[in-house]
């Protein structure tokens, strides 16, 4: 493995390369595309949560002006369920029978000449149901329980023996509610058939998955399916799967023989594209009087849909976070009549960390120890499950440097002891050990005759900065000015890329781009191997370096030539090379693969009479491995932090009992932070490149969110002496 040499381009806080498009409104998101002859679709959703459709009358809908097609289970073709993916099974195929499994389930699609006509006609579909009793509560004893759904339950040591020697045991239930991803971009699909060829603009985080799935479902060659997503209006996990509305739009386009556009409504975004499932967690931590953790037992249960999958091992974080000899973690899922949950920014970690890092605070308080000290005292010097050294870990620096920047030492330990006029002041912190994730990825790099570089991969940039950091990386690796590098993504005709998810894309893609660029330089050397006119002839890859559009021998800049000179002399327009990355393996490296680490420090202000809670300051200290662009990485952490504040204080998807209807499926009712809720914040990056990969990054898309809920809850405890164990922490839970 050749590790990336430190240059001047990588790491610099370059403005986003796509900024001009975004600030002028000319970036094209899926619902910005209009095709010639395009017509519009609208969905019909179930208004019960369980049962059957007794009858469905589409007469009035069909008769409405402009209507071109109405498809329900009565006239839908048989569709296969999509394939098994890296993330588990595909969602069930829509319209295959009369069964209702959740509120909002798509039971029909209407196509009309205009969007106004389609939406109106969809409301004219009359449905009679035969309702069954719906299971909606994760605690419902009738619900089927899936034990150890991902095989990630862990056990080490002997927790019973551990608790027996504990001086203090905290044993509490923590709960987190349903949250809805709600990217600002309404998810949209524009589908267009030409014979067996299909082009789809889609709000996806994973174009290849959409291509493979649609080819399988519609039984057409994968090579004829093209999926485009150059810009996506956020995702936070909502775009990871090929949801039913995507399939229905493609089906509708085939029915009417014209391009069809479907844009989900905001209420439909609550029932159609996943959500963070609620959890009930029982966590028990035992410690000695000196603050040594002797046992942790963490049981989590989450909700999942009746016939679908979701990955939410909420208790796993307790196995990874600290050096504790006796740990037991157990996860279960309860099958309910709910829209299927799916990944939402920091799935599982976002919920589990709240329980772990809050309970740890309870332990610290019980033994009278500083919350920072207990975390440093139980620092996991090696990977607690594998017993291997970490490929990189600067969590200690996160804690110490973050505490320094925040002024943690000013904290007086007694709850309620800090005040600013009418406002109670609280300080809280939490640690984060984010799990490693990476999957295979490919990229292709070219250098053209004019010396410019073109690099591409079928990845997506959902706001993460992928366009920008990959441009920087390629510029560095090819020695080409960033202004002369174009990085493209969001097209399934490009080399395979995995999903933008799991904080894994930058690592996977970065290392693929690294491989492609290195191979491309070697291609140039191959061209001049026997070219005696070239000062580079006979040079091996390790003999050369690249800068200013030239390859030259290391230590002798005069011994080199430009890409253009080589291409010209050999009559070539361009040279290209493919690169791929595969995830490193712990066993081979003798190191435990590390994800990002972080420490979050929060100051809250609380008006105890009115229950008003304000986040006044946040310091996030992050070990994200190599930071490719300080500006965009900082934005990722800031954005994650806002997501964490939101999880802690605002978000709760409310479900009506009996009907399973989402009771607050609008932006007026489902609260997320507005500008005034968010303080300025500080982000520190500590640590250095990770040792496990060439590029040495560790994804920072999710670590920013995790820990905020616990840090805010801990700060509320510090301000008031009250421990809030249910999210979100709202006025009604805070009035004293």
């Amino acid at each position: 493995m050749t590790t990336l040499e430190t240059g001047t381009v990588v790491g610099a806080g370059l403005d986003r390369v796509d900024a001009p498009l975004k600030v002028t409104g000319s970036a094209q998101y899926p619902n910005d595309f209009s095709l010639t002859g395009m017509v519009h679709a609208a969905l019909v959703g179930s208004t019960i949560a369980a049962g059957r459709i007794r009858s469905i009358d589409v007469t009035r809908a069909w008769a409405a002006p402009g209507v071109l097609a109405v498809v329900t289970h009565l006239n839908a073709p048989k569709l296969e369920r999509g394939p098994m993916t890296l993330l588990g099974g595909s969602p069930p195929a829509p319209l295959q029978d009369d069964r209702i499994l959740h509120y909002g389930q798509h039971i029909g699609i209407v196509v009309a000449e205009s969007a106004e006509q389609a939406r109106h006609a969809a409301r004219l579909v009359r449905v009679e149901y035969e309702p069954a009793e719906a299971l909606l509560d994760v605690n419902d004893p009738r619900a089927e329980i899936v034990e150890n759904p991902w095989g990630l339950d862990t056990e080490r040591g002997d927790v019973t023996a551990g608790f027996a020697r504990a001086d203090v045991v905290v044993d509490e239930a923590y709960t987190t509610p349903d949250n809805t991803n709600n990217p600002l971009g309404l998810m949209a699909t524009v589908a267009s058939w030409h014979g067996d060829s299909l082009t789809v603009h889609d709000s996806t985080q994973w174009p290849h998955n959409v291509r493979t799935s649609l080819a399988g479902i519609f039984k057409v060659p994968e090579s004829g399916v093209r999926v485009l997503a150059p810009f996506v209006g956020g995702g936070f996990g909502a775009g990871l799967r090929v949801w039913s509305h995507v399939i229905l739009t493609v089906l509708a386009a085939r029915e009417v023989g014209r391009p069809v556009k479907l844009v989900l409504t905001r209420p439909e975004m609550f029932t159609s594209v996943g959500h963070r499932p609620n959890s009930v967690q029982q966590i028990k931590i035992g410690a000695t009087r000196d603050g040594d953790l002797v046992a942790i037992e963490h049981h989590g249960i989450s909700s999942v849909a009746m016939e679908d999958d979701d990955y939410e091992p909420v208790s796993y974080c307790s196995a990874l976070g600290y050096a504790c000899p006796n740990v037991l973690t157990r996860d279960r899922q309860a099958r309910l009549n709910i829209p299927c949950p799916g990944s939402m920014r920091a799935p599982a970690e976002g919920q589990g960390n709240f329980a772990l890092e809050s309970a740890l605070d309870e332990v610290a308080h019980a033994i009278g120890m500083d919350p920072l000290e207990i975390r440093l005292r139980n620092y996991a010097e090696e990977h607690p499950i594998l017993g291997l050294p970490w490929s990189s870990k600067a969590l200690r620096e996160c804690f110490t440097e973050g505490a320094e920047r925040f002024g943690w030492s000013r904290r007086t330990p007694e709850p309620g002891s800090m005040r600013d006029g009418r406002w109670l002041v609280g300080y809280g912190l939490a640690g984060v050990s984010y799990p490693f994730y990476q999957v295979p990825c490919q990229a292709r790099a070219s250098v053209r005759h004019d010396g410019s570089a073109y690099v591409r991969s079928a990845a997506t940039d959902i706001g993460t900065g992928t366009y920008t950091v990959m441009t920087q990386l390629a510029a560095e690796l090819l020695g080409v000015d960033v202004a002369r590098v174009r990085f493209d993504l969001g097209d399934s005709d490009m080399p395979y890329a995995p999903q933008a998810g799991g904080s894994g894309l930058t690592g996977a893609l970065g290392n693929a781009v690294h491989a492609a660029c290195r191979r491309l330089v070697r291609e140039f050397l191959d061209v001049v191997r026997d070219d005696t006119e070239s000062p580079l002839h006979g040079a091996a890859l390790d003999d050369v370096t690249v800068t200013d559009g030239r390859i030259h021998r290391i230590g002798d800049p005069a011994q080199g030539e430009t890409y253009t000179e080589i291409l010209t002399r050999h009559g070539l327009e361009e040279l290209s090379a493919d690169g791929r990355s595969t995830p490193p393996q712990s066993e081979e490296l003798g190191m435990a693969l590390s994800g990002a680490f972080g420490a979050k420090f929060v100051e809250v202000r609380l008006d105890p009479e009115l229950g008003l809670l304000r986040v006044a300051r946040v310091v996030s200290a992050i070990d994200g491995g190599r930071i490719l662009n300080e500006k965009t990485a900082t934005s990722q952490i800031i954005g994650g932090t806002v997501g964490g504040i939101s999880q802690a204080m605002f978000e709760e998807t409310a479900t009506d009992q009996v009907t399973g209807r989402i009771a607050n499926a609008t932006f007026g009712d489902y609260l997320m932070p507005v500008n005034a809720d968010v303080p300025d914040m500080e982000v520190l990056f500590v640590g250095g490149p990770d040792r496990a990969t060439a590029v040495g990054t560790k994804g920072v898309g999710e670590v920013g969110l995790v820990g905020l809920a616990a840090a805010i809850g801990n700060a509320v405890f510090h301000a008031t002496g009250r421990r809030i164990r249910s999210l979100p922490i709202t006025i009604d839970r805070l009035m004293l």
Partner: protein
Amino acid sequence: MKHMETEAPPTGQSPPDVSQVDITLTVNGTAHRLEIDSRVTLLDALRDHLGLTGAKKGCDQGACGACTVLVDGKRVVSCLALAAQYEDREITTVESLCPSGELHPMQEAFARHDAFQCGYCTPGQIMSAVSLIAEGRANSEEEIREFMSGNICRCGAYPNIRAAIRDVAAGG
């Protein structure tokens, strides 16, 4: 159990099946004649009928600000406006901010401060921010926070949005 159609029930003897309006919208200084369904919102008229897709649809309920445009110099949410109501008014969209290709100072500041991530709310944020300064409401941190709170950014770029606005307000 029966569920009725969820559209408001027709109440009249002969409710209209189709109703078109013939209007002229003045957008970014150019008059456009449109014959459209009376139901078309100003946002959809801009996006679907005039090809101006800068203004975005984030909620279609007036609650997110992604569709913010200016009408006679004042910011509005174009999703809660019927196009027909806005005939003969001066409508200004994000597309007008850099007619010669040179970024407006607010656009430049958003780029410099990384005041967006996915970029979907950005045209609305920028139109709101331009308006905020025209309203004289960028004088303090408190003012910026309060009067930019009608524009939701789910990616959470708020601190950077404020930094960009502060910069422009200060003449930078």
